[in-house]
């Protein structure tokens, strides 16, 4: 986990979309929101899940690994940058390989875009747009110590399982204290599709 990073607590998310709007104001992708806000059980539950780039550390950035054009740079501080506009050929390998479903693609512009942790802000010590505007603290930016000072007893996890693979990330999620020793399930293997058991 990076020093200062985003901590996501879906339990606090009220699905207000403030993060989605604020993300559009980021200078590095002005006018386009890179954060995803999904409603996993729409119609039955008000649960909502914000997804930013998790900045995978091990394996390091699968999106960058599958890129045939070496377009995705991982900076020394562990931030997985959005595709280099000069190199990206718009093949969508990163879009379909990302285990978290993060990158977006503009097929006309042949360009991938993704959350880059608001590098124009975080490189200068400012919080990303999404965490700045989140009214409930579902997106928190800071160090783990700062999070725990604000929310005593809170625990976080920074590894996720996809089948037999565990992915360690730079961005972490809040988990209950009794779940902290296990990686967070990433949704794979898929056990159920539209109410049908597919195990």
């Amino acid at each position, binding site marked *: 986990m990076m020093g200062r990073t985003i901590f996501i607590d879906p339990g606090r998310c009220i699905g207000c979309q403030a993060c989605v709007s604020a993300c559009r104001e980021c200078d*590095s992708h002005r006018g386009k929101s890179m954060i995803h806000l999904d409603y996993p*059980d729409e119609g039955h539950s008000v649960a909502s899940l914000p997804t930013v780039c998790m900045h995978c550390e091990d394996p390091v950035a699968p999106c960058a690994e*599958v890129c045939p054009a070496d377009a995705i740079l991982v900076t020394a501080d562990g931030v997985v940058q959005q595709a280099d506009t000069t190199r990206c050929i718009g093949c969508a390998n990163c879009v379909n390989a990302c*285990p978290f479903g993060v990158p977006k693609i503009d097929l006309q512009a*042949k360009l991938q875009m993704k959350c*880059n942790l608001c590098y124009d802000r975080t490189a200068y010590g400012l919080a990303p747009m999404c965490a700045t505007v989140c009214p409930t603290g579902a997106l928190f930016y800071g160090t783990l110590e700062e999070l725990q000072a604000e929310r005593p007893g809170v625990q976080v996890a920074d590894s996720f399982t996809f089948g037999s693979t565990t992915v360690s990330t730079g961005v972490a999620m809040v988990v209950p204290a009794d779940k902290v020793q296990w990686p967070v*399930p990433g949704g794979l293997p898929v056990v159920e599709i539209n109410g049908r058991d597919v195990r």
Partner: protein
Amino acid sequence: MRRRASLAGAVVSFLLILAIVFGSRLLRDFDSALLPYAVATVFLAFGVAYRYTVWISAPGARRLFHKGWGSFFSVANFRQAPTALPKMIATYLGFQKFLGARSHARWAAHQLIFWGCLLAAAITFPLTWGWFTFTSSTGSGPGYEMRIWGFKVLGFDALNVVGWLMFHGLDIAAVLVIPGAGYFLWRRMKDRGAITGQRFAYDLVPLLALIVISVTGLLLTFSSIFLHGGGYEFLAILHMVSVVFTLIYIPFGKFFHIVQRPAAVGMQLFKYTARRKDEEVLACRRCQEPIDTAPYVENLKGTMRDLDLGFDEWAEYCPRCKRVLRGNAYLDHVKKGFK
């Protein structure tokens, strides 16, 4: 891999040396004043071949390389859609339509740089290799002959429009490149999106190099017309140093995209040929939204397996379903209170 890349570099540069020797009729037409440029192109050939070999050795690029060139050389593809490839080359590589979708100003500026550099390369490379010669049978002209590999291809009067265009081709190229590179340089100073994460050696040096080459090139013409050659030698050396530096920089910096960009055509052709058959589009296993062509997804899964990314079956789900399934898993197994 390094050994293979070095070998590829050595073979390509050796072939270029042979092409220079034979193309200049055993150096009879070779202009020794242009030797540093010719040597730089040999280094360029080595660097490009080396970097290209390293590049296509990575799993993602290697698979795309095979699929792209496989589609390119496929007789069946050519029979089915003979115009597809020329159309893609014109739109992606020539007129760069995709850049227009990013920004009209960037498209215009890039077109200026692209055509300017292409014109300059088409003139200078064969000239420095001794492939082109301009000779006058009457000594000082005005009747000139242009020869390629010793064969006469064009006769022209140096004092008419054709002659002017022939002898000022590089000035025209410079006039195209300077506003294009100038715009990008201005953007790199002002646009906060462009400034984010920009690096001097990667983002600014190529633009400065293009401007220095173009300005010193134009100053050479200025010197010969208005200063009776004053400062010409110094300018010639400055121009040569900037060109040589840029040629050697090409394989290692931003300019390598010139070599990489044709991969976009290979990738598009690979997808296009599969998309012509509707049944080959793979739909998300959960929501049935189309993901991409089945051969493309299979290719990606192969790349992921090559890289030991053990979640390649995940590629058969769309990004949204991946997020929703992860949300459901969190909801079911991590934090019931998420509700």
